[in-house]
């Protein structure tokens, strides 16, 4: 592939890709996302390739990233028609191919409502999907993440073209500011303001970073995006770099996902080959390079200043500086860090405009939010809904409620630094500020259902145990405070709690929260704080010798 020299060349190339494609030709998309892969969807994909191969050119088989409905994997989607097959086994393959060629549906493999038995064939009829607004994840079944042409075929890099050819960096920045895009990594901080700070920092050398670390337990949507559609994130990053005036980017992600690494490496190489990275991108005069970096397995490395230390090659300890990384980041240069989902939102904001973007969502939280739905839920998976969607929709309409017919006890958001709210707050809307006020900040977007049997003391102990192992250990309140909280919680779960333990815990929450060096320590007491707010009697009765849970 020769390098694309201009926007016109890219659009011409895109037209050629589309011209070669026959929309009527059946295409079978097999999900090899993390969960489907764990259910051996690779064997299903191989069977499709083998069977389909016998037919010559009649059918296309595509291996793709996460479709979303992880609970029912391996997932297969057949186009045209977006026919969804669930829990597909290699032995089902010949039947699916035969039916597809005849324009028929394999009834036994489509969705069946567990209560009514009603079937749903097409994606937009399946309850899990039909209540969603899949602006970001929706392209995944259409894309083989190893093929940049698949991304171009769904309109990929058109936003970059628009930014580079029709907009000044200031205009791009303005659009993102107007869109009120808030950081999806946890804080909900306006991305545009952060970009502006880095842009306005006097230092000429600037960096942009994708935080794809996703260390939050039970959060898996960023991996689904980055593994399933790496070019979308890269496009967002390049646009951001253009607006900010950065010459270099870093993708920081997990070391323990071989497929993710393969896809991202390949995407960077292809973008470079096509001239979307490197010198003079599409003839615009804008130069930008991007490097891939890995965490080496510790949660604190997702904290922004620790992450930057790690990119520099140092131990990932947060810096004790009262200066923002957006001004003073990697090698003391202004560095703008956003998470995967934030970057993924950028192309559509540029393509469709801030006005369109702000028409979706709640008053102060715009756009959609990716949610990893798991725990004691019937339908777990990656979900995308507009901000402001009531939790009830997520939990019941999409999630199908609690597993095994049990009663919902609590909803937990935000992993080990999030919080749990009781089931009676189920009508609260999904909103950065609203959820924070309730004590269960959205965090990165891991939503867990906890059923009636859940022991809330044990949950707090478990979360603290997780964090104790992920702390860097540099500052006293985080290192010692969490360790002491863990001791106390362990004792209480064992029925060895003592009078004064709750006061001790409250002191530790307060001091760890205010005195810790970085966000890990500062928010480590948050789950416990929410427990004390909503489930304190459970703690009290455990200390005074009551029984567990319920």
């Amino acid at each position, binding site marked *: 592939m020769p390098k694309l020299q201009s926007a016109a060349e890219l659009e011409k190339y895109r037209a050629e890709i589309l011209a070669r494609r026959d929309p009527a030709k059946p295409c079978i998309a097999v999900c090899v996302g993390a969960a489907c892969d764990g259910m051996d969807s690779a064997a299903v994909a191989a069977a499709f390739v083998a069977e389909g191969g016998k037919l010559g050119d009649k059918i296309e088989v595509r291996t793709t990233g996460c479709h979303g409905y992880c609970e029912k994997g391996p997932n297969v989607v057949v186009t045209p028609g977006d026919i969804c097959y669930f829990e597909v086994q290699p032995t089902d393959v010949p039947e699916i191919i035969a039916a597809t060629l005849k324009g028929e549906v394999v009834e036994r493999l489509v969705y069946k409502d567990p209560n009514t038995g009603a079937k749903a064939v097409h994606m937009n009829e399946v309850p899990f999907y039909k209540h969603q607004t899949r602006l970001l994840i929706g392209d995944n079944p259409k894309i083989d993440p190893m093929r940049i042409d698949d991304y171009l075929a769904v309109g990929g890099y058109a936003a970059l073209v628009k930014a580079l050819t029709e907009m000044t960096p200031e205009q791009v920045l303005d659009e993102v500011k107007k869109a009120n895009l808030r950081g999806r990594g946890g804080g909900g901080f306006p991305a545009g303001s952060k970009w502006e700070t880095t842009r306005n920092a006097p230092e000429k050398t600037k960096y942009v970073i994708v935080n794809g670390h996703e260390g939050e337990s039970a959060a898996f949507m960023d991996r689904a995006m980055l593994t399933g559609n790496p070019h979308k994130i890269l496009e967002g990053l390049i646009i951001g770099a253009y607006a900010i005036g950065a010459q270099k980017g870093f993708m920081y992600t997990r070391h323990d996902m071989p497929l993710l690494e393969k896809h991202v490496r390949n995407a960077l190489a292809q973008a470079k080959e096509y001239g979307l990275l490197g010198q003079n991108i599409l003839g615009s005069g804008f130069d930008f390079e991007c490097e891939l970096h890995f965490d080496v397995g510790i949660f604190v490395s997702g904290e922004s200043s620790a992450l930057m230390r790690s990119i520099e090659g140092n131990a990932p300890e947060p810096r004790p500086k009262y200066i923002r990384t957006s001004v003073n980041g990697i090698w003391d240069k202004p560095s703008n860090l956003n998470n995967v989902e934030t970057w993924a939102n950028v192309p559509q904001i540029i393509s469709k405009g801030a006005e369109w973007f702000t028409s979706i969502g709640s008053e102060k939280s715009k756009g959609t939010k990716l949610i990893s739905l798991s725990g004691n839920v019937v339908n777990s998976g990656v979900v995308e809904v507009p901000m402001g969607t009531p939790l009830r929709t997520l939990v019941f309409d999409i999630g199908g409620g609690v597993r095994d017919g049990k009663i919902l006890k609590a909803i937990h958001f935000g992993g080990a630094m999030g919080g749990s709210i009781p089931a009676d707050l189920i009508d609260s809307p999904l909103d950065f500020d609203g959820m924070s006020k309730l004590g269960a900040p959205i965090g990165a977007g891991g939503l867990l259902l906890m059923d009636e049997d859940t022991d809330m003391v044990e949950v707090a102990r478990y979360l603290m145990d997780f964090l104790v192992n992920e702390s860097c250990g540099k500052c*006293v*309140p985080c*290192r010692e405070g*969490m360790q*002491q909280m863990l001791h*106390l919680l362990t004792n209480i779960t064992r029925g060895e709690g003592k009078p004064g333990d709750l006061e001790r815990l409250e002191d530790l929450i*307060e*001091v760890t929260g205010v*005195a810790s060096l970085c966000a890990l320590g500062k928010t480590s007491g948050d789950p416990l704080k929410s427990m004390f707010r909503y489930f304190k009697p459970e703690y009290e009765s455990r200390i005074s010798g009551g029984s567990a849970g319920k």
Partner: protein
Amino acid sequence: MSEMTEIVLTIDGQEIKATAGMTVLQAAQKAGIYIPTLCHHEKLEAFGGCRLCMVEVEARGWTSYVVSCVYPVAKDIVVRTRSAKVDKIRKVLVEELMAHAPDAPELIRLAEEYGADRNRFERDASFCIVCGLCVRYCNEVKQKNAVGFIDNGARREISFIPEVAKDECWDCQECFTICPTSYAQAAYLLTEALAFPGQRKVPIKTTQAPEPTRRVIPIMPVAATT
């Protein structure tokens, strides 16, 4: 070199003159105002690890809690080195550290000052409070790197590197004297005993190493606590 900018701020009600680039801790120390700290050393880069030097800062109507060893002085900020909240933070931090080094004189003194209960939290008598003074002094001042940090989180500890310590520590031992709990010395001796007994490099000309100014920790009677 540009002219040094003078900055006026308030610390504990006193108007203090400081120079741009100074930290609040430096400004306070210059003015003779005491702020406790366990990990700060004037020859070392600020670490911000022990958090005891945390103070209350009021700037533009906002009150926040910052570590004074890192926080830079700024015009017109109001600093309070003691307040109910600051004292509470220090009390709990000292209590946490006393779980490791209940008899360290420095901690006993701080415990008295802030009303900390040495028995409040579960004991793990590791004797090290991981202030990192030894590690950083060896790296930044001596540039020997004979002692380093290992592991993370609550398992983090200091560890002498026998291969380096064997040749470098015999005539230095300066970290022993800056250690607030005497653990550095114990850790070194243990490393020597295990990894290179009798092999410590000795001076060629004099047979005796220079007398180090070691601090001996007295064995403290355990006070009855309620």
